[in-house]
């Protein structure tokens, strides 16, 4: 079953140059998201980490008998750790740093552990560029988030087919295909669903053009 393709919502087929422009616009958005995440890491986060060191130095120079002051500095450091944890949370929602640095395999495994989803993740070492990887990551995340509380074991497979990232999500329910489509379509991708059979669970298959 074809859920989406290059078809225009109004029924006609989009002019190819318009489709290309639209795709590039969405690719740029992923690049911007990655840039923002890196900016958080290299800017605010590093500054705050450096601040904890300066507080440590202050603590070292304060008189050992000043217990209240010593404790207060320790509390400030804990507070800065909490601030950084919140920044990490924001960074992960913009563009997960592990996805940026290590690719879909490690990022999806970390995500599954975080959300406690029993899932087998099969990936290759290939990199697909920030747009396709971002779209695939957030598609899987939205499927995981929408699953029932006691989910059955699922499987996610990522591989390359020529100039496309092929993403298969097995066992999360065909109803979630729309979530995957939301991420794949803006980049010119397509989504298909293989319904559940006596032999196996339903599978959502996305084809996302990549670098």
């Amino acid at each position: 079953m074809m859920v989406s393709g290059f078809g225009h919502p109004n029924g006609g087929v989009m002019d190819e140059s318009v489709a290309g422009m639209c795709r590039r616009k969405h690719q740029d958005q992923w690049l911007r998201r990655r840039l923002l995440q890196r900016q958080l890491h290299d800017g605010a986060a590093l500054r705050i980490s450096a601040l904890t060191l300066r507080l440590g130095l202050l603590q070292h120079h304060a008189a050992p008998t000043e217990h209240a002051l010593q404790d207060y500095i320790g509390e400030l450091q804990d507070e800065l750790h909490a601030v950084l944890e919140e920044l990490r949370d924001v960074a992960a929602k913009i563009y997960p740093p592990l996805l940026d640095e290590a690719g879909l395999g490690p990022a999806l495994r970390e995500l599954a552990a975080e959300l406690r989803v029993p899932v087998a993740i099969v990936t290759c070492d290939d990199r697909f560029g920030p747009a396709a990887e971002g779209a695939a990551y957030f598609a899987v995340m939205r499927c995981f988030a929408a699953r029932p509380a006691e989910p059955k074991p699922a499987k996610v497979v990522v591989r390359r087919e020529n100039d496309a990232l092929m993403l298969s999500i097995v066992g999360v329910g065909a109803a979630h295909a729309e979530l995957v489509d939301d991420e794949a379509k803006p980049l010119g991708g397509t989504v298909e669903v293989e319904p559940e059979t006596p032999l196996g669970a339903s599978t959502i298959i996305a084809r996302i053009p990549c670098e």
Partner: protein
Amino acid sequence: MRVALAEDGALFREGLLMLLRAAGHQVVCSAAGGDELVALLATAPADVAILDIRMPPEPDGGLITAERLRAAHPDLGLLFLSHYAESHYLMRILEIGTESIGYRLKEKVGSVEVLTDTLNRIGNGEIVIEPVLAKRLVERTRGDKKDVVSALSDREQEVLRLMAEGRSNNGIAGQLYITPKAVEKHVANIFVKLGLHTDTAAHHRRVLAVLTYLRSQRNES
């Protein structure tokens, strides 16, 4: 202790330099990247090298630099500092070495006591793992393992978390204000309950066994 330092963020590098000196450590060299540090360490011996993971050579220069340093100076301790505590990096770090090696969050080494404790443990051959990450690994166990871990007593769970931080029996005893003998008993109980059979006397093997248990999951490829 003689310390070498590589970190590309100048603000953090300078802060760490000052804290290290205040703690009485000797900073034998400091650099903004891995290649520079490798060159400096050829002539300036150190006990521990502190490495930022995300620095030149990009993307994760700290890991590449560590591999080169381990080959050139097998006795040099390695402390990785990062803005992120990820089990993915922990596993890569433990592939580089399982002795005299550590991984901590940048904002968590900001006191003379913690910094010195971390460096001393690495200097003594231990594995040091960021407590934030060790805690997360213990809390994130799933399925059958979650049941096993939650069936441990509160004290045993504390001991498990400290084992996952890489602490020795004496270290755990010091943290929990109990005797090393009592720790030994808890550790033995935990190993029986988790079904782990390993030589608990070998520190790094024990840490690896615990981490492997906490990280592995059914279905993982």
